[in-house]
């Protein structure tokens, strides 16, 4: 997979998107087969190269925004205090929460917590970033803001792997993979997937349904 792109994992709930991400970040071990990431089996050695934003907000609610981000910076071995402080400020400004940095996470709204969660995932500058349903529960305006943040990251050369079940998110991705029942049913660029339906004005939704029907037909035969 090339770097600096956003790769969307699309599929309905229960398709196995989260499981796949957890396999890739090393939280789960495969029952059969093998998982390779950046040419290696996921382990503590690959961990520093990976950013992971889980589905839950996954923050220490008693702590402030800056304490949360700073904690994860330290966990990821950013030991130089001056550099760390600069980077912590940079990512909190990126998600536009510098004014609220001293507030405890408990006082923040869902969308703000989501942004803190993103800041914690990118603070150590990982080349590869996994985002598990990052836009779930966000209002349309925030969703757009989030995709702007993601665009900033891909421009910096960071590769994003984003899971989602809305086609709205899919349209923002450079590449897509459709998943259903734990299986990959199609992958390619949004345009390729749309063209595969054979209809000139097909939406991504149409494309997804097209591949599901094809899959079902193959299963019957």
């Amino acid at each position, binding site marked *: 997979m090339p770097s600096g792109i956003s790769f969307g994992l699309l599929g309905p709930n229960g398709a196995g998107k989260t499981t796949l991400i957890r396999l890739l*970040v090393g939280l789960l*071990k495969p029952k059969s087969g093998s998982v390779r990431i950046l040419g290696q089996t996921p382990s503590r050695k690959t961990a520093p190269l990976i950013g992971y934003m889980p589905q839950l907000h*996954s*923050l220490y609610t*008693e*702590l402030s925004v800056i304490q949360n981000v700073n904690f994860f910076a330290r966990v990821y071995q950013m030991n130089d205090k001056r550099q760390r402080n600069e980077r912590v400020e940079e990512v909190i400004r990126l998600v536009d929460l510098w004014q609220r940095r001293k507030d*405890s996470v408990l006082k923040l709204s869902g969308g703000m917590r989501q942004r803190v969660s993103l800041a914690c995932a990118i603070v150590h500058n990982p080349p590869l970033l996994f985002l598990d349903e990052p836009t779930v529960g966000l209002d349309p305006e925030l969703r757009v803001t989030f995709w702007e943040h993601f665009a900033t990251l891909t421009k910096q050369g960071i590769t994003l792997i984003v899971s989602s079940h809305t086609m709205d998110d899919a349209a923002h991705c450079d590449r897509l993979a459709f998943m259903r029942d734990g299986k990959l049913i199609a992958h390619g660029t949004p345009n390729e997937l749309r063209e595969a339906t054979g209809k000139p004005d097909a939406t991504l939704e149409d494309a997804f349904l097209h591949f599901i029907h094809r899959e079902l037909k193959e299963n019957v035969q």
Partner: protein
Amino acid sequence: MSNNTLTIANRIIYQLIRDRRTMVLLIAVPLVIASIVGVSIPDKQTLDYIAPAVLAVLILFFGFLLTGISFLRERSQGTLERLMASPVSKLDIVGGYLLGFLLFAVLQTMILFFYLIYVLKISFHGELWQIIVFEIIIGILAVCLGIFISVFARNEFQMVQFIPIIIVPQMFLCGLLWPVEQMPDYLQWIARFLPLTYGVDGIRALMLQGQNLLDIGKEIGVLAGYTVGLMILASLTLRRGAAS
């Protein structure tokens, strides 16, 4: 000691300090309990017998409860998943919890100790530092117990339900109120399997009989054995690749 252990300990200390009410309760509750014990037992000799045991019981109770709930939150709010995907090791996590909570355990022990000696006027023939060392040993056990038991709880209510299962039987059977030697044989037999029994025996020996840490080697050994066992169980529940 690794940098990561300190990072996690540091975070735990901040979490507790920022939670003002918990901090006040941590200091006030032991004093309230000690006061009730002091007022309700007019007989000086009985009080001398029971008060030191309160030190051991409270450190186990608070260590268990605080670690259990903190760790439960770490699991349920998803931060443990984040930590397990990061470069920290499970040893860093358990070590960080130990270090963070032991600071509060020492603080609590000292406040309670001075209260017992100077306000309740308990007889004391020993040395404070030895009592702190022994309390730390019980505290380590309590933290490992809390981490391990937190696996079986899905929420805070369930965690609190483990107090009557894990802590209360030990309180009644450890000899806090009545000497173990005077209990029926089968209860004595059960008591010999409970770590708190050794905690209470040890602290009485240190405070009342003027013995030192070397004299209570057996008690320390048993507590250390339990601690190692629980630490292994606790870290097994933290296996990378098995987070659920």
